[in-house]
């Protein structure tokens, strides 16, 4: 079957296999930022935004995005023009191996859209579903709080 959805602001009309996950579909159409760390919805590396809400694309059936807006990290900013949240992640130092980073940034984006002034504990709680084995999370929390500050200053 073919489905239609909006991927990072652009229309997509694409065939999906029976039972195909959104993760598989997105990687197939070139969105390689969507990472598979477990395939069972436990690590959060495959997080993307569907209608602005974070979902684990590895356990999300692709046909469910029919008619919906999907955002991957590629849709947030580019190499030449990174989003301030992406810059905050580079600035504050939580990008070590970078494998959890796409899911972390998109989950944080969803948080800051809802709550531009979170406490450190609120950030910690919101990111509970995104595992990171490199950083110990401290600098990830720092990055989200820094981005929140920039958002309140009107930088995005």
């Amino acid at each position, binding site marked *: 079957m073919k489905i239609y959805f909006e991927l990072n602001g652009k229309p997509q009309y694409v065939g999906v296999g029976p039972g195909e996950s959104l993760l598989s579909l997105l990687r197939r159409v070139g*969105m*390689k*930022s969507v*990472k*598979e*760390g*477990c*395939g*069972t919805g*436990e*690590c959060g*590396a495959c997080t993307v935004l569907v209608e602005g809400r974070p979902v684990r694309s590895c356990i999300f059936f692709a046909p469910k995005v029919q008619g919906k807006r999907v955002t*991957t*990290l*590629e849709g*947030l*900013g*580019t*190499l030449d023009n*990174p989003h301030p949240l*992406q*810059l905050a*992640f*580079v*600035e504050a*130092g*939580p*990008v*070590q*191996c*970078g*494998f*959890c*980073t*796409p899911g972390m*940034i998109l989950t944080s984006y969803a948080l800051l859209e809802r709550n531009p002034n979170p406490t450190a504990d609120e*950030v*910690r*709680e919101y*990111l*509970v*579903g*995104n*595992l*990171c*084995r*490199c*950083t*110990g*999370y*401290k*600098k*990830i*929390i720092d990055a989200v709080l820094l981005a929140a500050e920039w958002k309140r200053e009107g930088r995005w």
Partner: protein
Amino acid sequence: MVIKLGRPIEVVGKNVLKVDGIPLATGQPKFTMDMDIPGALIGKLLYSPHAHAEIVSIDTSEAEKVPGVVCILHYGNVPRVPYTTAGQGWPEPSPYDTVLFDKKVRYVGDRVAAVAAETEEAALEALRKIKVEYKILPAVFSIDEVLAPGAPIIHDEPDAQGIYDAKRNIAAAVDVPVGDLEQGFAESDVLVEATCEVPYVQHAALEPHCVAVYFDEDGRLVIRSSTQVPFHVRRIVSRVLGIPIHRIRVIKPRIGGGFGSKQEVILEPIAAALALRTGRPVVMNLSREEVFVSTRTRHPYRVRVKLGAKKDGTLHALEMEALASAGAYGPHSGTVLYNVGSKSLPLYNKARHLRFHGKAVYTNLPVAGAYRGYGATQGFFALEVAMDELAEKLGMDPVELRLENHIRAGETSPIFEKLGEGREGKPQIVRSCALAECIKIGAERIGWYEKRKAPRREGSWFYGVGMSCAMQGSGITGVDMAAATIMMNEDGSFRLLVGATDLGTGSDTVLAQIAAEVLAVPVEKIVVYSSDTDFTPFDKGAYASSTTYVSGNAVLQAAEKVKEQILLVASKILGEPVENLSLEREKVVSLRTGKEVPYWEIGHRAFYVTEQQHLMASASFTCPESPPPFAAFFCEVGVDTETGVVKVEKFVAVADCGQPIHPKLAEGQLEGAVVQGIGHVLFEEMLFSERGSCVNRTFFDYRVPTSPDVPEIEAILVPSVEPTGPFGAKSIAEVGINGPLPAISNAIYHAVGVRLTRAPFTPERVLQALKARAK
């Protein structure tokens, strides 16, 4: 090496942007699996369901009929070449006890066959249709069972090499005495003993093991792999498959974490064998479950430490006995065993009588391998719990006991010479050590003296503080070698080519900073290209906390050579002797006349006009010594005496890594290592059924710390100057993981008076310990 720049340091010691930061934060396709390879087959593995069995027969006829199946490999159709999966320097100190596929399986998860098919579905269907008849053999799962008489022999194959005693299932053994231990204990006023156990735990790097193998336009084999050791992969694949090294290229793109698990050459020879047999590209990407069951783990250890001390607190005699389960094969079994002692015992060099002895034994459980800390984690758990016990018995503050006994700059330990990497080591003097300051700062940050005196209590919650110390090394003495090449571009920028392997640690950035500092350019003017066996010089790879120190020294020396070449050209342009000239901000400046010439002019002239020479140089660095980083750890924990729940309230890690090249990255290493260590303390343990099958194979069942699990963490760097390190630097990647097990155990003891000596400290175990004490 301390170098004279003749100007202030500008790049080293600064938190420059990580060179791969923006690409990673914008999701560029930089990982192994991010490259689409047209026509690639999918490789999948069939694993043993039995812990110990002989394969009587294997029938692939039905599997071969599955549409899309191209190739099936098993013991019957591949060459038998014993090797070790340990990605170590040659000759590897680990036993050659592994072959591609064997007629015998030795643990649940051992590989039986590999399938390459057009689709994943076809490959999985073929796996289901391979018929294997097994003759089940008795299996052994614990160290005690293995060492008991009559235990089944796990490695009875005649062609294995380098096993310490195959008939007794001993992969590796060590017994090193210094002085006279019994006399030492007899002369001691106080004796204590502690035995601590670390179970099977796993690295849990977020990116599973994966590899893509294809042929270039000249028919050479290209292996794009998530590996920490590209050069060792090339050498081992060459030997196992019988193809010359020059026909193989290994590329390490960005890798999603390793922590030692990717210092193992697991998938590469199999994917390469499938590719060679089919003439097609092959991709293998393990599922999380496969990573848990079939890759590598930390070595489970039982370590017993006995200490003898004089009344004044001076350590006099020290015995450490270490027993490990190596699992079904022995990669790193001997070297991790040696490191249990070699990386922990030198910390307390006042003890004159020592003995370090132990064994790593085969069991029918998953294969242990390298894991951050590499034995030191297990050694320090027992050593630092014993030190806490000793302090109590002496009526001394644990802080004072450490301060009195720890090694200092200018001192040595006989252990450096006695214990190396699976063999004797080399004598070494500690040239830099800021541990005393680390201890003092840590004690202050946790509020040690007040909290020690007056422990808090709220209802059923009891609070306590504990501490521990640790060290590690910086590379492997006399073994590790790294090389670097630096080439100037004519616009005055540079290319830095290093075999060094950035596995997320930021080593590409750190090495670029070292080159940039010597060459007086911003980091943006250094284009780093790393970890490609065709285009970068050799490097042993990312392990043993070596990259900043060993690879960093190679970069420093290469940069010095390029600097000399730049100065020679500039001297001709400016008509002044080299001694008058200095490199400053992309120019060469005369210190005498103030005349200057920019790099771009030097580059253009050297390339095209006068010298007609590419300004470039290479350097190799071997590691004559391995300067230890030191760290002190302090924590405050709460223990709920009703439920047994342990909550770490605050954790302070203070480390001396010499001069940090990039403080933020160094802090990140310390924080990350501490949190992995806290995971070991609170949750992590691979559990096995009575048939030896790992039962917690997902992140749901095998819990690693999540963001809300992490306490307040303070990571503090206390700089020393390591005279042999690049710009005074030592390592930082591993030392942090050695602290949490003993520090938290000691804090629990302070809080509730019971010693937790078996990780993880689950509520059940805490309650059991509390009940046992009440009796």
